[in-house]
């Protein structure tokens, strides 16, 4: 209920409401961007741009787009994917071709001191690569079920249940 009111005020261009939402979601949004872009400084700049964009697009959100977090997550990953696809970024980065989430998990020392590597490792403990890939595709890369199934060479019907079990493991690790 409180969240719904905040969103309504935000859509009425209430900056205080927007500030509250920023503090609720900024770390998550910047984290999504960082997983995709893999450059903490650039991610901070992009994160700023994404929140400005969220403010500008505030009237475009409605509940048919799902959760508010889902909506801003979508804006963030699209901005980050655009960044990765842009040429300037390619020239800047050298050898981080590994899958986003799997790569960060396995090469978390690259981010040493810049992200919460210990927290990340404990959170992803026990998650198989297939789970990491699936979470990566659906939450960080914006793939559809069909696209994810094709990418992972799995039947579309298994995606939903497998995702359910992967997220369950994640939730157990949180506890």
């Amino acid at each position, binding site marked *: 209920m409180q969240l719904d009111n905040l969103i309504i005020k935000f859509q009425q*261009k209430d*900056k205080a409401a927007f*500030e509250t939402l*920023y*503090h609720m*979601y*900024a*770390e*998550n*949004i*910047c*984290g*999504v961007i*960082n*997983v995709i872009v893999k450059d*903490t400084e650039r*991610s*901070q700049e992009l*994160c*700023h741009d994404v929140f*400005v964009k969220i*403010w*500008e*697009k*505030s*009237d*475009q959100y409605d*509940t*048919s*787009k*799902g*959760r508010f*977090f*889902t*909506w801003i*997550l*979508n804006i963030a990953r699209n901005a980050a994917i655009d960044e990765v696809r842009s040429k300037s970024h390619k020239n800047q980065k050298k050898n981080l071709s590994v899958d986003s989430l799997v790569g*960060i998990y396995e090469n978390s020392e690259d981010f040493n001191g*810049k*992200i*919460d590597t210990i*927290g*990340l490792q404990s*959170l*992803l403990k026990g998650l198989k690569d297939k789970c990491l890939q699936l*979470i990566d595709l*659906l*939450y960080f890369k*914006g793939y*559809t*079920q069909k696209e994810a199934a094709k990418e992972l060479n799995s039947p579309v019907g298994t*995606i*939903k*249940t497998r*995702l*359910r079990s992967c*997220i369950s493991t*994640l*939730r157990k690790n*949180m506890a």
Partner: protein
Amino acid sequence: MDVKEYIASGILELYVAGVLSPEENLEVQHFALQYPEIQDEIEAIEKAVMELTKTASPKLPENGFSKIKAEIEDVIPFTPEAAPKKGPTPWSSYLGWAASILLAVGLFWMYTENSKLKSEIELSNQENQGLQEILTNTQEEITFKENLLQQIRDKNVTVIALGGQAVSPTSYAKAYWNKDENKVIIDAQGLPEPPDGFTYQVWSLKLDPLTPTSIGLLSDFTSIDTKLFTLDNVNESEAFGITLEPEGGSESPTLEQLYTLGAVGS
């Protein structure tokens, strides 16, 4: 509906990922309102994803939001609130202006074309009229000359050649005399133009004794191109002579100024 089965299907994980269609999203929300378990499950999934994304987050600058705030304050005039109003209007008005300018130019062009054509028609009409006049004149002239020719060719016409005399040996003239109609046509092409204040006078002559009778003046000599003059002659002429006389003519011929003379043949 079996809430547990619905939750176990994994649809809520997809809902949080944002891969469902708008219709499916609304359906999930509908069930979430109806069954608190579903609402709780959605929030728990979202929390797990948020936790995961949070651990990957770089440190946020402390003044993160004030920077955003500074920027969105600049941005306000350009926010979607203001933009759509401004957006379409200029285009449609530019289009409108462009169309009306085009129309005006087109109308002006048609107007000038039209007046050009009109003046061209007027000019053609004038030309036509001029040509018509020339044609009429020419036809009149032809009729006149045909008449003359006919008169000259008449079988009753006697042709008298008048030769040049002492005062002007190279001069010559011809008289076409129709005795039945009592007319003489003088062809004066071989005479020089008379000096100002003088005119040629034609005389009918009886030779024995020499009796000149004036039958007329070759007035307007200069302006008559054909140099053909028709005069009345009721006399029983034996010869014709042309003298140069002061304007208005004389009672009797000035013989010193006799230009041409010719006797009527038998």
